[in-house]
């Protein structure tokens, strides 16, 4: 099966082409579109399972060569090859699995959209790109997927392109990603120049011998890679695109901006773990940035009203955890959180989608133009959407870190790892502290979200209320599956003390992948015994505290409608406005660059200096000289004769010199 892993890539690709064709030719053949769109994912998932079953028995990676992509020289010959190992298999499963569920959900969610076929074309294309990303055997091949998912993200964020804001959001996402990609490219150049290879396996093999541990080179390369990760995974300073990305259809947010694409950065760090292991400084940076992002995003999430925005900041925050995890060098913990997060965050988004779907329909019926995503318009949905409520509750508990839900284990492991590193390196202790604070806030804003959405009374207008209803089964079905996974997902990597045989499953599973990097780092002594219990207990307390607080504070006072709320001020305003980061970027970077381009480069340098002065000036000088010449030609014979005589004198002088 491993040899046929390309089928998993090819099918979604063909699906994308087929659906794309249908989008032009038969935009209303929705049955066919869904069959293709979901069908290819199903087959891909089967392939993924098949691969998984094989890889289970095999520690070493297998490279599947498709064709020679860039056979330039002996030194630079890049093959289009896939690397099937335990890491890619995990992601293969997550992507096709969660992806399949989201496809299914979309069938219901997008049912009435005019761009149905186009939507599935993009979605299939995304899956193909994402699979290329995780399967790529070398940096350039992964880079195809890396940029490809960015493209799909761009297309899907701007799916409803006729609204300017959506297109803007898509563009913003792509450009922020591209800033990161610059880092990845530069990292590739440095790697190739120094190692003569871009193949992941060969990098891992050669790097320790060539790049001295802790050297500027190692730090440089890894920081550049990490720059790419901050773009793709929405970390400080490039996180600004992700909240805006919520402009896309909600299943897209679930798939791309929660479960899969945004976690690609984490994946990449793990893939190039050896390099990071050689650069302890970078690891510190990664951890700190991760923790800071987790903290700051969480603070912003506290004060958002758009249900998807809350989830978006939550995603940024959770991604921060993942980086904190990989930043400690415990790569498996990062992947662990990646997987569980995929489950519960997809669930949350799809749940939110279901809510928005319901709200939208209700509003549509009464021809209201209120914001279907604003939580202040919701409330009391528990009654009409019991399934959604239950499942989202599970996800909330999971993300808040309440045992025994999936998030508890993964988040705890990250914090434990950070704490453990903190014993020798205070930076990690700071990170740990930020992480704990973020956990508290996570629980708080999730409780707030749940309370505002599902509890209390419906605030969206009496007219709309009767039209609210639970989503169809095609949508809740996937939710149920994800709900189950969110509950039991933690089981793939239970902490050691819970049992010998089944514990640390993912850690051991990924060992062949992470071992070379781990060997280069000081061993991570995870807290055990009393400390471990204390940490676990603390985490539980934090989670419960946060949830309670969130519930209490939210329910304490009536929630004003969007238009009627008193203006925010002070810290709340700051949080609500996301620290004015967008405004800051606009003022510090975007507008100056525009000004520079328009005024200085174009109008002054290009149009004036080069074109008018240098080019036009030469022409003008010539013309003026010509004019002067024709003035001299004054028509007076006397003057002509004088010129003649002067010329004669000049010639004779020259000769007699």
């Amino acid at each position, binding site marked *: 099966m491993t040899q046929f892993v390309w089928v998993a890539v090819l099918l979604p690709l063909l699906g994308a082409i087929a659906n794309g064709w249908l989008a032009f030719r038969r935009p209303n053949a929705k049955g066919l579109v869904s069959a293709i769109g979901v069908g290819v994912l199903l087959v891909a998932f089967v392939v993924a399972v098949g691969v998984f079953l094989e890889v289970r028995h095999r520690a070493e990676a297998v490279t599947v060569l498709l064709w020679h992509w860039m056979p330039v020289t002996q030194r630079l010959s890049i093959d289009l090859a896939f690397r099937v190992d335990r890491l890619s298999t995990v992601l293969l499963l997550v992507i096709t699995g969660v992806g399949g569920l989201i496809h299914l959900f979309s069938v219901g969610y997008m049912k009435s959209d005019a761009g149905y076929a186009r939507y599935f074309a993009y979605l299939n294309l995304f899956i193909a790109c994402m699979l290329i990303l995780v399967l790529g055997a070398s940096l350039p091949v992964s880079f195809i997927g890396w940029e490809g998912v960015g493209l799909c993200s761009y297309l899907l964020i701007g799916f409803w392109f006729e609204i300017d804001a959506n297109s803007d959001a898509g563009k913003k996402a792509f450009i922020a990603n591209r800033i990161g990609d610059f880092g990845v490219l530069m990292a590739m150049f440095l790697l190739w120049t120094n190692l003569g290879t871009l193949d992941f396996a060969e990098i891992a093999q050669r790097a320790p011998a060539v790049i001295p541990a802790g050297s500027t080179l190692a730090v440089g390369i890894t920081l550049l890679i990490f720059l790419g990760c901050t773009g793709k995974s929405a970390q400080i300073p490039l996180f600004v695109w992700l909240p805006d990305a919520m402009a896309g259809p909600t299943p897209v947010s679930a798939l791309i901006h929660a479960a899969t694409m945004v976690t690609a950065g984490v994946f990449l760090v793990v893939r190039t773990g050896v390099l990071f292991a050689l650069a302890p400084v970078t690891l510190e940076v990664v951890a700190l940035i991760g923790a800071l992002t987790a903290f700051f995003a969480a603070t912003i999430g506290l004060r958002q009203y758009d249900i998807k925005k809350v989830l978006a900041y939550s995603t940024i925050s959770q991604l921060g955890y993942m980086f904190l995890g990989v930043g400690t060098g415990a790569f498996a913990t990062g992947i662990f959180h990646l997987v569980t997060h995929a489950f519960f965050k997809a669930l949350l988004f799809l749940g939110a989608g279901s809510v928005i779907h319901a709200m939208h329909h209700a509003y549509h019926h009464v021809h209201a133009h209120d914001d279907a995503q604003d939580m202040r318009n919701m409330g009391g949905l528990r009654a009409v959407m019991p399934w959604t409520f239950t499942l989202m509750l599970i996800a909330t508990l999971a993300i808040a870190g309440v045992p025994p839900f999936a998030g508890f284990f993964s988040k705890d492991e990250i914090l434990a790892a950070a704490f453990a590193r903190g014993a020798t390196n205070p930076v990690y202790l700071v990170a740990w502290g930020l992480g704990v604070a973020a956990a508290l806030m996570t629980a708080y804003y999730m409780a707030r979200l749940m309370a505002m959405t599902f509890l209390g009374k419906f605030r969206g207008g009496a007219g709309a209320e009767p039209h609210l209803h639970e989503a169809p089964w095609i949508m809740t079905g996937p939710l149920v599956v994800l709900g189950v996974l969110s509950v039991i997902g933690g089981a793939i990597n239970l902490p050691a003390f819970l049992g010998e045989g089944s514990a640390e499953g993912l850690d051991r599973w990924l060992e062949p992948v992470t071992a070379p990097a781990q060997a280069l780092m000081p061993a991570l002594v995870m807290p055990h015994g009393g400390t471990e219990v204390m940490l676990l207990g603390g985490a539980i307390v934090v989670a419960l505290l946060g949830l309670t607080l969130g519930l209490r504070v939210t329910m304490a006072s009536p929630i004003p409608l969007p238009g009627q709320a008193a203006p925010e001020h002070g810290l709340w305003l700051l949080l609500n406005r996301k620290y004015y980061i967008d405004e800051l970027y606009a003022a510090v970077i975007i507008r100056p660059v525009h000004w520079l381009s328009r005024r200085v480069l174009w109008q002054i340098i290009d149009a004036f200096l080069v074109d008018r002065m240098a080019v036009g000036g030469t022409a003008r000088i010539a013309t003026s000289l010509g004019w002067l010449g*024709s*003035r001299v*030609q*004054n*028509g*007076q*014979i*006397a003057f002509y*004769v*004088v010129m003649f*005589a002067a010329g004669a004198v000049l010639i004779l002088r020259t000769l007699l010199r």
Partner: protein
Amino acid sequence: MFLGPSLALSAVLFALGVVGVLIQRNAIVVFMCVELMLNAVNLTFVALSQLHGISGQIMVFFVMTVAAAEAAVGLAIILAIFRHTKSVDLTQINLLKG
């Protein structure tokens, strides 16, 4: 015999002719100055004939013939312009310029 003085004299005459062309404003006078230049050269030829034989003197005849033809054509041209401008002042003749 008198080679040096003759050459010097012809040079002076030639220079006078040139200066005349340069400073005179009347077309006919200018033309006369040109004739003076030609005749100065004739003097040179004749003077040089002492040194190099008869050929210089032969040249003088050709020059005189040519000068005569030139005079005929030249005066006709001056007449033609006079018909248009009613003047032979060269400063007035500057229709063509630029």
